[in-house]
């Protein structure tokens, strides 16, 4: 039977609280009430991602996520989408290295429907899964890969950086989209086996956030999910342990039809959930987040050698996180000039650390980003699931911003010195080549639109 406890209200969490419960079958439940708007989010995280995939079956977790929308025992065909949208809800699912999530944001009076739908597929997907939907979604996912990776300039950069930063055989060596060959090879039996292995109530966290009656919501959860059998078929992912630093500079030069030279790099950074990861986040923000960052000021404003220059952070819990440098050069600029300037800025930062003003700005930026995440019931539900699945404690979501604000300048400097160094990075350089029929005949069609069509 469900057991619950109420957390005390946390400072800095905007008055948000969350309660935790566990069903007898192991399903963990997090509830958070907020009656300001008549909406509620249902978010379900399964503790399975591309890191659980085996050689020859990359992309299976994501392909499988698509199959979760193809019907289950009581839900026909596209019924999951149809019922949620017909109820005025919105929905989706996403797959990353470390988890697969499914979410519905509903008008408050339709929450029960979302719970019923999620329970139906958690308990009975295999009764509806067939060859036809597998073949169809295989084609859809291959087109997703083409659209997002293969048919856009620099589209495979992330895949290439990840493949260098996490060595062959490492569970994070490949990205969730997978390879075309492996997508082709996935069989119905692979999909069934994947479901039997990873889709179980005791391998998931369910968060319901928003305009809810917690007691009623919990009763519905018990009713719909309570009889889904648990099992311990799950296989843990392969060990993701790696040394803190790569220990040498890796490098790949890509000659492709891209519009400009680019310098990208992936740095190995501390694991998500640690104070050092928050310090790294601040370091990357000072160096390459926004228009007052050091790299923007140096490369875009002063040297005028780059169109755009910045850092991004991919937080990972089961392997070192990844700091992603991305610089697109201005016309006529050579990559070594950019690289020298980047190295100089990183070295100076490692030595001096951030100024008090830089710390204030970076912390203010991360605070706003965090407030943005918590501004919607869907964002809040996702964060509660994240901390529950990856760190065992959803309450940590409510105090995350405080932890970022507690980091000191010296900690930021220290993590930069330890990690943002040439021997801890995989470098990816793009050199443009002209396509065979890409004549210089662009004058006639030299247009640029201010927005994409969709």
């Amino acid at each position, binding site marked *: 039977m469900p057991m619950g406890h109420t957390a005390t209200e946390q400072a800095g969490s*905007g008055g948000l609280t969350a309660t935790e419960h566990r069903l007898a079958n192991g399903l963990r439940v997090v509830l958070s009430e907020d009656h300001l708007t*008549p*909406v509620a989010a249902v978010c379900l995280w399964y503790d399975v991602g591309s890191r659980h995939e085996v050689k020859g079956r990359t992309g299976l977790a994501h392909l499988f996520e698509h199959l979760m929308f193809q019907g289950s*025992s009581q839900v026909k065909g*596209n019924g999951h*989408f149809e019922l949620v*949208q*017909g*109820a*005025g809800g*919105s929905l989706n699912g996403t797959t990353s290295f470390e988890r697969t999530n499914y979410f519905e944001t509903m008008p408050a*009076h*339709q929450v*029960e*429907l979302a719970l*019923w739908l999620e329970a139906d597929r958690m308990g009975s997907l295999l009764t509806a899964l067939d060859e036809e939907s597998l073949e169809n979604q*295989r*084609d*859809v996912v291959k087109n997703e890969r*083409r*659209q997002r990776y*293969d*048919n856009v*300039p620099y589209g495979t950069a992330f895949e290439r950086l990840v493949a260098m930063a996490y060595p062959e055989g490492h569970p994070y060596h490949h990205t969730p989209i997978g390879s075309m060959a492996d997508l082709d090879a996935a069989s119905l039996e692979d999909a069934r086996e994947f479901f*039997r292995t990873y889709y179980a109530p005791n391998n998931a966290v369910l968060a319901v956030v928003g*305009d809810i009656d917690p007691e009623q919501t919990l009763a519905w959860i018990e009713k719909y999910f309570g*009889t*889904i059998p*648990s*099992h311990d*078929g799950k296989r843990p992912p392969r060990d993701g342990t790696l040394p803190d630093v790569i220990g040498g500079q890796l490098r790949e030069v890509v000659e492709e*039809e891209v*519009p400009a030279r680019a310098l990208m790099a992936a740095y190995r950074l501390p694991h998500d959930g640690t104070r050092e990861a928050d310090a790294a986040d601040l370091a990357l923000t000072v160096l390459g987040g*926004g*228009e*007052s960052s050091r790299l923007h000021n140096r490369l875009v*404003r002063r040297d005028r050698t780059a*169109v755009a220059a910045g850092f991004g952070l991919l937080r990972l819990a089961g392997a070192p996180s990844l700091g992603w440098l991305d610089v*697109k050069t*201005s016309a006529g600029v050579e990559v070594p000039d950019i690289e020298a300037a980047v190295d100089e800025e990183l070295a100076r930062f490692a030595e001096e650390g951030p100024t008090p*003003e830089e710390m204030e700005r970076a912390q*203010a*930026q991360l*605070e*706003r980003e965090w*407030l943005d995440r918590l*501004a919607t019931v869907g964002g809040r539900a996702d964060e509660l699931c994240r901390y529950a699945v990856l760190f065992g404690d959803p309450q940590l979501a409510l105090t995350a911003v405080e932890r970022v604000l507690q980091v000191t300048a010296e900690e930021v400097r220290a993590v930069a010195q330890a990690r943002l160094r040439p021997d801890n990075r995989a470098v990816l350089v793009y050199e443009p080549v002209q396509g065979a*029929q*890409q004549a210089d005949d*662009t004058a*006639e*069609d*030299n*247009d*640029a639109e*201010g*927005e*994409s*069509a*969709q």
Partner: protein
Amino acid sequence: MSDAVTTTMTFHPQPSAGAAKLWAFPAPERAELSNGLTVLRCHRPGQQVVAVEINLAAPLEAEPAGLDGIATIMARALSEGTDKHTAEEFAAELERCGATLDAHADHPGVRVSLEVPVSRLPKALGLLADALRAPAFPEGEVERLVRNRLDEIPHELANPARRASMALSKELFPAEARMSRPRQGTQETVEGIDAAAVRAFYETHVRPSTTTAVVVGDLTGVDLDKALAETLGTWTGGAAEPRPMAPITADDTGRVVIVDRPGAVQTQLLIGRIGADRHDRVWPAQVLGTYCLGGTLTSRLDRVLREEKGYTYGVRAFGQVLRSAAPDASGGATGAAMLAISGSVATEVTGPALEDLWKVLGTLKEEGLTDAERDVAVQNLVGVAPLKYETAAAVAGTLADQVEQHLPDDFQAQLYTRLAETGTVEATAAVVSAFPPDRLVTVLVGDASKIEEPVKALGIGEVRVIQG
């Protein structure tokens, strides 16, 4: 696995909905500062990040001949230093507030968007006011923005979706119309922009009396009147002549343009024409019908192209207002919307995918929408409103769109009532007239050597290939 074999799940029937709770699109409070600047404000409890949207009446059409892109450069240059701060200082001060400031120019005018935690709203409003009131437009910074813009152009040309969008505008609109040309200018026009021209454009078109500020968020404990009076209220400037808007015309003769991309693994498609804007009474029916055609993956297009055939990751139909003017006494559309179908399909199935797409349009025209389709669409479009407008930024964006399109402040609120009243017959008529199979301009960005012949065989109009 032993537990799983011995126990099975208990199934329950699909639950029915509880009692719906009332929700209405928020009504803003409208006021005018002493300098003539219009303010719309809206209190949204719980929204700690406040959104401020500024509309400047500087339409692209007002750009001087040969200087396409100057509105974009001006918009970007607003945050490159003021009478109080250098460019670098301004960026730093803004980020110290935890704020973001974006500015962009589009056909109806320039939009400046500020987002900031409410605790730092007054300070951020001060910076925003400085940028609007006293931009420095330093020569060196404007020159840098021009060079930066020139460097961006090849990236936009390389992006299949953006390339398709430019080609469609060029096809649809007459060459002399500003809408036929890229919003942010071309290499030729951007090269001619300098600080003096930017200042002249600013002085001609930017002033408080033609500016609107929309402020949305949790304003508990904020003395917004005081904050506005001390910031945007200190901006001075004269009155302006109203600027008439030229009528929008387009040639939608059915035809195909292939932008050649040798070796492309997908074909980006963009199929469009222009149609009614929000002032037209057909708008709700057009929204409803367009959703049924291609609003989501269970709409007609994706039901075939994605969920049956697997040709695509998704194809969408949409209507996006280009520009509207104030209504005259007669009522009806005052401007136009781009009506289009967009997506990408695998290269080798480009012909079959387009054939199916046209079949979907043909069937829709012959058989119309079903009542069930219409009902689900209304339930979705009306039902998602409280979700869609959860954040301050979403509310502010829609209110600013309404201002920009000369619509009443309660337009969106009324739209939900009108959607609910729209029947199947009206929605069918609207979508069929929005997407007539023989009056659509098709742009395909893809490998001409592979797709030209199959596309010619479809008979959807003359096929022309241009270089990528």
